[in-house]
């Protein structure tokens, strides 16, 4: 099954870190990504630019799409990146999530990807 590990963290935390700390942080993510790849479960991953770069499109007045500056929700912790992995079950996904460096400075949400087989099954 495919799972998305979504990383939520406070963006301010990164800028407050010293150069060495930032380097260590990056190295931890690099090592984690390598481990996922070696285990053959890695399907994709990306780090996102801070919410300063976010633009939101939603349904505005009179049904026209409205473009807004900023993220979907102005919360303290923001989506900062993701990993897409393919593992046997939730336990395997949770075990990978618990190794993610993000757990040290934020939160990882684990969500199964909607598969074609499932989409055919009525709820």
């Amino acid at each position, binding site marked *: *099954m495919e799972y998305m590990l979504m990383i939520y963290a406070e963006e301010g935390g990164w800028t407050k870190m010293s150069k060495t700390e930032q380097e260590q942080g990056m190295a931890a993510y690099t090592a984690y990504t390598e481990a996922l790849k070696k285990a053959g479960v890695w399907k994709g991953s990306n780090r996102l630019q801070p919410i300063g770069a976010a633009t939101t499109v939603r349904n505005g007045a009179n049904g026209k799409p409205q473009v807004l500056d900023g993220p979907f929700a102005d919360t303290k912790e923001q989506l900062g990146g993701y990993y897409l992995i393919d593992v*046997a*079950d*939730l336990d395997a996904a949770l075990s990978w999530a618990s190794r993610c460096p993000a757990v040290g400075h934020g939160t990882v949400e684990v969500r199964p990807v909607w598969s074609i*087989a499932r989409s*055919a099954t009525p709820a």
Partner: protein
Amino acid sequence: MADSENVERARSAAESAARRSYGKLVAFLAARTRDVAAAEDALSEAFASALSDWPANGCPANPEGWLLTVARRKMIDAMRGRQRHEVAAEELRVMAEGAELAEMDTRLPDQRLGLMFACAHPAIEAGIRSPLILQVVLGLDAKAIASAFLTSPAAMGKRLVRAKEKIREAGIPFAIPERAELPARLDAVLEAIYAAFAEGWSDPSATDIARRDLTEETLFLARLVTELLPNEAEALGLLALMLHAEARRFARRTCAGEYVPLSKQEMRLWDSEMIREAEGLLLRASELGAMGRFQLEGALQSAHVHRRRTGAPNWREVVQLYDALLAVSGSPVVGINRALALAEVEGPCAGLRELDDLAKDARLGEYQPYWAARAELLTKTGAIEAATEAYEIAIGLERDPAVRRFLQQRQSTMKR
């Protein structure tokens, strides 16, 4: 035409197959797809077929195998009706493969434990784990479960459906967790079984059939866990604790339904066979060298029984057991019992001081045993007015009429 005797025989064969193997069949049917609801539906259709087929054609030699084959066919039919995608074909192939396997080997692999671990998975809301196990492992319906847990059948039904969807959609495995994870995960399973048992136990006169059944069913579950994991000390401890409690069921009420505290119970009404089994289990557990909450609670029951039987006060030992239990559980409820035991050793004032400390936990303000304990200790110190008041609150908070009458009686004897 089947005569009524054949119908009766078929019904009883189906019932005993259900009793023995319901959870086994659900676990086996749902193991690959993780679709518990679909497995339950297919199985209930298979049981319905059995009731119409067996009276006419005779009961099969292997009822479980018969039910499994029919249920599997129903499941495949249901899936065909629902799914048109290529992926569905793949799933069907996997299912059919399993069906052949099942027919070849009549001995079903027992995956009930894996199913229980799925139901008590940390990804499942804690409050629904216990009802979920009762439903999918034992086949109890939402109505019976709702009545035991004092909620509406509709609400219980919805929560059960949601939990089964979570198992399927999130990909929760039917598996015994790895060694490192096992103690915590097993604890959740045991916790869920004990919660169901406690619900059944809160009606000791067993006037409510649903509740009486619950005690028997949960004992069956606890026994099952000890059979499948014979070297887990806490599983043995839980079964011992439950047997100790169950052994005194009939002594806890008079014929008139009045509540009888442990110190006044008639020991000849205790089930000595169950007590013997419980003691044996505790001994076996202690040899495994992994102390835990359920073993400690079992040991406390054992200490109470021993005291009554020998007449020799063992309150110091009881306080020590509560100390250990408090260290593991940190529960204020344990603290209340510890305070009562301490009062037996050091006098009521010492017990009251403990209770005062506990009162910092605001939840206890609405907890009957806290006020009953307070009332009892206050009575012993002669603070009649304060005791009357504490009894009043305890009575107001109690939901069992027999215990309410007991407290009222205590309150009025004290005044005289």
